[in-house]
């Protein structure tokens, strides 16, 4: 498989990886939107207690179901491995709660293919479209600072679930952080590939739903401890 030149890939080989846990109310629309653009989707149902898996399957996704709840990092890793086994050329990690826009993902794919980048991270802090509360903004800025310091990569937004990763680079990813600390871990592992990369401005849509589901700020304490005592 050619890996370095910047040729266009078929959309049918560009897999969206969507970790999901109890997202039944929104995941159907999210999957349909991605499928309408012609991309295959793998939803990793992290042992949801609702019918997220069935809804995702009806919406056109391939569903991989964890037998026990492991956490978002583990679900992401499962989805990445599944997509690579299907022969994906690019992977797009995408949240199930509807906070990402498919236009941004396509823009990131275009950028990665046009500039021959190994991976592209979405960032909500490159422009001021995304409305974040002051405290959340502070915490996310701190997370980005921590990630910069521990990985040496100049990121503005470390905890954004929208990423585009070329398949050969995705093989560098082997997440051991099952819970939310994977966001920093994946940056570190992708950085080791020594491939060219970029950040891309994305608009994160905070709805009442995603705000209700989102991580509480207390969780940032857990993330920090996970990262420091691994």
């Amino acid at each position, binding site marked *: 498989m050619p890996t370095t030149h910047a040729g266009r890939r078929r959309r049918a080989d560009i897999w969206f990886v969507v970790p999901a846990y109890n997202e039944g109310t929104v995941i159907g629309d999210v999957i349909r939107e991605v499928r309408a653009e012609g991309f295959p989707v793998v939803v990793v149902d992290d042992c949801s207690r609702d019918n997220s898996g069935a809804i995702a399957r009806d919406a056109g996704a391939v*569903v*991989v179901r964890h037998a026990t709840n*492991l956490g978002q990092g583990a679900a992401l890793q499962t989805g990445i491995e*599944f997509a690579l086994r*299907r022969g994906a050329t690019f992977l797009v990690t995408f949240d199930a709660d509807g906070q990402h826009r498919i236009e941004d993902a396509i823009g990131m794919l275009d950028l990665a293919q046009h500039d021959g980048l190994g991976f592209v991270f979405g960032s909500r802090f490159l422009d001021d479209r995304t409305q974040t509360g002051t405290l959340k903004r502070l915490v996310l800025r701190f997370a980005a600072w921590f990630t910069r310091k521990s990985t040496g990569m100049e990121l503005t937004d470390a905890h954004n679930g929208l990423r585009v990763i070329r398949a050969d680079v995705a093989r560098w990813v082997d997440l051991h952080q*099952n819970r939310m600390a994977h966001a920093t871990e994946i940056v570190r592992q992708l950085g080791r590939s020594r491939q060219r990369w970029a950040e891309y401005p994305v608009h994160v849509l905070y709805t009442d739903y995603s705000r209700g589901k989102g991580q509480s700020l207390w969780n940032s304490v857990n993330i920090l401890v996970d990262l420091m005592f691994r």
Partner: protein
Amino acid sequence: MLIQALLLIAIVAVVILLGRSSKNVKHMAFRRLFLLAFAAAAVFAILFPHVLTQLAQLFGVGRGADLLLYALVVAFVGSLAMQSRRATELGRMITLNTRRLAILEAETELGLNSATRSPSAPVRPSPSAGA
């Protein structure tokens, strides 16, 4: 004294229960040696409490019981660390098993099997559980 008899019985029970087989040969041998030394020291401390007190004073600690408490705190923290490491290892094994099961199940559902799998499909070598 009654307390001495009770403590000695408890130590023998602990040695028998914890000294049983485990997987890693080196770890197991180390654990058993440590356990024997620990038991010997405990028996000694129970039978000759005054020696323990002398030892404590040698270290600048008041009573033998205080020395015992400090040693216990150190042993407890060490045991916590060992348990936490073990829990991490087990969690890793569960994760790998769950992942393998989930992927195989999905591929079976899709009607795929090893014969039709894409040739570029990577098979990640399972990393050993320990770090």
